[in-house]
Every structure is written in structure tokens, then in C-alpha cells.
């Protein structure tokens, strides 16, 4: 066990170096790759800190989906790169703000009382009432369900913001998302083999979330990755953003949350309160809808606004 501190310090140093590489890198593409590696190492750190739920989400969202979003942004950026460098004053202000936030975080973390205040025992105590075996899922879906619902609203707002970047004339059309695809190329082979496996793993991640690390976000992100692979390989085309079924899938999670929320007044006298012995099945219903919404929202975020009317 003696070598553990050396391992942790090496890992921490590597993460700082990667962060610097991502921020200071001269080339966008290299910076994004640095950022993805940074996310994966961060997931490893969460794992070492015994927070596998956070680790899974960090790997899926921080490393995976955000990486895909940034790569998409890089690809769109090409062609205007040279004359759109932010001015020196903008950069100084951005650097100052980032430094202030970092300094604030450092102060807060260092001034935490030791041992840090924790609600973990309280969260564990009422675990039985929620029907969950995983305290993290219980926090997300029962104790702080309202926060989780609002998180989904934020995700949807982000998608609305992306969609509003398209031209008025192409509103409701299909996002431009096509690549030159080789017939029988390796990407199509990968899509055919990996998508069924990955989708199953995604569903499994969501399902075991009740009792073990996992849950709607990690599962949804993995399913989204499989959807993106299908789009990249040209096996599927992105749906028109006006497509009614797509829009239903996008709001399904919030609708399920609101429905259960208002039904809470009927069966338990409060918004988003679950009736006593029905908590688990209701949570599963919300989570199914949420996984669906998360997967579709993430895919649509990456493919971007509508390009042409079809």
C-alpha cells in the first residue's frame, strides 16, 4: 500500500498537465483529444475516491459526449479559424474569471471542516422506503427528484438553443450530418457489431442503477453514443427536428416527471411525492422515460441545427 500515494500524485500531476495541454494547445483538434483524455483520467480519480456513479457519468458525459460535441464544433469551425481569434482583452477577462472560480473552489475545499459534514448516513437510513439499493440513485430520484427534473429541463433548453442557430428557412428540417462513407468500410462493420452490444450495455447500466452504480444518465449517454455511431457510419440518417416522434422522445422524461409530480398531490399530498409502497415502480417508469430523453437529446445536440428542408 506504500506505493499508493506515488500513484495518486502521478495521476494528479498527469491530470494537471492534460488540463494545461487542453487549454493552451495551439491546435483545436489536439486540445479536444487532450480534454477527452482528461475526462477519462478524472473518471479514474472518482473510481479511486470510491465514487463509481460519478466515475461512470464522468467517463460517459465528460469524456464521451462532451468530446463528441467539441469535435463537432471543431469540424464546423474549420474555414473560419484564422480571423476569429478572440482579442487579448477577452482572453485576459476569461482567464481572470477562470482563475477567480478556481481560487474560490480551492478556498472552499480547503476550509471544509474535518470530518466534512455528510448526509450519507441519513440517505442510507431511508433507503428502504425508496425501494432502491443504491443511495446515489435514491438521492437523484427520490430525495432530490426536483433537481433531477430541472436538470432535464436544462438539457432540453440547451438543445433549443442549438436548434435556434439554424436558418429560419430550414426550421423543422433535417440536420446536415453526412460524411463520405466507404461502402463496406470498417466504420460500417463496427456499427453493425458494436451497436447491438453497446445498446444492451446501456440498457443494463440504466437498469442496475437502482442497486449498483449506473443510472439513466450513464445509460442514456451510452445509447446516445451508439446512435451517433449509426449516424457516423451512415446506417441511419438524423430525423428532422420537426418530427413529432422525435419531439415526444425529447420531452418524455420531463413529461413523466411532471405527471408523477402532480399525481403526488393525489396520492401523497405533495409535489413529486411517491406513495409508500409504489416508489420503485414509479421511479422505474420515470427513469425509462428519462433514459430515452437523454439519449435522444445528446444525439440531437451533437448533430446540430437543421440544415435543409426535406
Amino acid at each position, binding site marked *: 500500500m506504500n506505493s499508493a500515494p506515488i500513484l495518486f500524485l502521478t495521476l494528479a500531476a498527469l491530470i494537471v498537465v492534460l488540463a494545461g495541454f487542453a487549454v493552451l494547445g495551439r491546435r483545436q483538434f489536439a486540445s479536444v483529444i487532450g480534454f477527452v483524455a482528461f475526462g477519462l483520467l478524472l473518471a479514474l480519480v472518482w473510481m479511486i475516491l470510491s465514487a463509481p456513479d460519478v466515475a461512470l457519468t464522468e467517463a460517459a458525459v465528460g469524456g464521451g459526449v462532451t468530446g463528441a460535441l467539441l469535435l463537432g464544433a471543431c469540424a464546423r469551425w474549420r474555414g473560419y479559424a484564422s480571423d476569429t481569434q478572440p482579442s487579448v482583452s477577452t482572453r485576459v477577462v476569461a482567464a481572470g474569471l477562470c482563475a477567480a472560480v478556481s481560487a474560490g473552489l480551492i478556498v472552499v475545499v480547503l476550509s471544509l471542516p474535518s470530518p466534512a459534514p455528510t448526509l450519507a448516513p441519513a440517505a442510507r437510513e431511508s433507503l428502504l422506503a425508496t425501494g432502491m439499493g443504491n443511495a446515489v440513485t435514491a438521492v437523484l430520484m427520490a430525495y432530490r427528484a426536483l433537481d433531477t427534473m430541472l436538470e432535464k429541463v436544462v438539457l432540453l433548453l440547451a438543445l433549443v438553443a442549438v436548434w435556434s442557430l439554424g436558418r429560419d428557412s430550414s426550421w423543422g428540417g433535417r440536420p446536415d450530418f453526412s460524411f463520405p462513407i*466507404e461502402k463496406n*468500410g*470498417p*466504420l460500417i*462493420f*463496427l456499427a453493425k*457489431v*458494436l451497436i447491438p*452490444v453497446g445498446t444492451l450495455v446501456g440498457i443494463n447500466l440504466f437498469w442496475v442503477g437502482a442497486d449498483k452504480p449506473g443510472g439513466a444518465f450513464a445509460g442514456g449517454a451510452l445509447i446516445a453514443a451508439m446512435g451517433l455511431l449509426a449516424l457516423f457510419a451512415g446506417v441511419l440518417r438524423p430525423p428532422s427536428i420537426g418530427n413529432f416522434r422525435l419531439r415526444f422522445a425529447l420531452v418524455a422524461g420531463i413529461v413523466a416527471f411532471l405527471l408523477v409530480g402532480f399525481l403526488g398531490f393525489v396520492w401523497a399530498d405533495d409535489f413529486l411525492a411517491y406513495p409508500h409502497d409504489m416508489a420503485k415502480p414509479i421511479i422505474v417508469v420515470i427513469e425509462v422515460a428519462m433514459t430515452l430523453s437523454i439519449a435522444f437529446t445528446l444525439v440531437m445536440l451533437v448533430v446540430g441545427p437543421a440544415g435543409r428542408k426535406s
Partner: protein
Amino acid sequence: MMTWLFNIFTIVMISFGALFFLAGTAGLLRFPDTLSRLHALTKADNLGLGLIILGLLPQIDWPFGALKLGLVWVLVLLTGSAASQIVGRKVHEEKNS
């Protein structure tokens, strides 16, 4: 006695795996062109990870833990080789044009 043997097996296999990762990384950094760098990289992915997973097999619950580890290896092989193919073909295209 058996656990002893298993532990030695694990240590040996994981050390060999780590060696392949080290060699692969050195190759990635030192080799002159994209294709030979790909060659170095796949050694780490295929053999290095394969040996590490082989070494972990005696330490994990049978059969499902072992199956999961095996699946991880197969999936990395699959994605790694597909990605190498894509990069390799791109290099080939650029050479010919």
C-alpha cells in the same frame, strides 16, 4: 497453495502486459510515420490489454466477472482495429493523391 500460484500468475501476466503498454507507448512517441505508430499502438491494445485481462482472470468471480473481462477485451480489439483501419486508409488515400 493454489491462491499463491494464482497470484504469481497474475503478477507475471500483468507485468508482461504493462511491458507491452510501455513498448507501445515508446513506439508511438518514437516511430517516424503514422503507419508504424499504428503498428506500435495495436501491440499495446491487443497484447498488452489481453495479457492484463488474462492475469486478472484468476482474481475475479466465475463465470460472469470473467465473461465481462473477456468482453471488454473483445470490444477493445474491435474498436481498436476499426479505428486503425480508418486511420490507415486515410494515410493510404493521402499518399496516393
